[in-house]
């Protein structure tokens, strides 16, 4: 009887050892699976966080679930779920690149539209201001609504606007639309200020 009991004890220990060994065998692959997914998320880079934040969040949330399973020693569960999540993580870079390209194309279209609008109106605005400034410069006395200091600032603003417009058109010719639009916006600011100071309004 004692022998039987001892054997049963030994068997239990042996089975527990086999189970532990099995778990240990799955622990490393599970650990590696999680690490691979995290590496794929990292490889997607900051573009993924910027352009596909929802997808990054979905993957990181599922990684957190996997880690919880890992902590609960559910290595089998981790290994079962990992391939799909790894594929999802590996797709982040491509999704980010695609979203970035779309965003850049949209930004370029917006810049083109803004340049079209500004380039259609600013030369006429600057010409109108220059014409008025040239005539007022011949005046023996400025009109009632314009003092000398304001007129001087208008002349300075006009000179700045002309310089900036030259820079804008040069940048546009060189293919740098962003710089062109930035300079053109500054021209518009100067022109609007000059027009307001001169009591001139655009129709």
């Amino acid at each position, binding site marked *: 009887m004692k022998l039987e009991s001892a054997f049963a004890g030994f068997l239990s220990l042996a089975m527990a050892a086999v189970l532990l060994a099995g778990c240990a065998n799955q622990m490393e692959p599970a650990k590696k699976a999680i690490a691979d997914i995290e590496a794929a998320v990292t490889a997607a880079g900051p573009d993924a966080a910027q352009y596909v934040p929802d997808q990054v969040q979905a993957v990181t949330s599922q990684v957190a679930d996997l880690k919880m399973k890992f902590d609960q020693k559910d290595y089998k569960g981790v290994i079962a779920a990992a391939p799909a999540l790894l594929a999802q993580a590996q797709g982040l870079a491509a999704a980010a690149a695609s979203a970035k390209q779309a965003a850049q194309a949209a930004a370029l279209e917006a810049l083109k539209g803004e340049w079209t609008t500004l380039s259609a109106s600013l030369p*006429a605005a600057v010409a109108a201001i220059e014409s008025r400034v040239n005539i007022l410069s*011949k*005046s023996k006395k400025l009109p009632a609504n314009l003092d000398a200091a304001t007129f001087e600032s208008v002349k300075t603003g006009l000179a700045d606007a002309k310089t900036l417009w030259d820079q804008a058109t040069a940048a546009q010719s060189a293919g740098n639309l962003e710089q062109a639009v930035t300079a053109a916006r500054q021209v518009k600011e100067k022109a609007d200020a000059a027009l307001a100071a001169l009591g001139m309004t655009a129709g």
Partner: protein
Amino acid sequence: MEEKKQPAASPADSAYTQWYEVKSGDTLWKIAKAVYGDGSLYPEIFKANQDVLSDPDKIKVGQKLRIP
């Protein structure tokens, strides 16, 4: 003096072309005095409106003039 605008009347006009509608008692001198502070600059207005003015002394009430 109030400056008014009207739709471009010639290819040279733009959204920034300034317009003035002639009122009773106006002369180009008076308009120039009001807009430029100096009536002697009236030829500038006359030159800018030669498509509608043949004589600087002959402007009509209601006429819309460019103010360069």
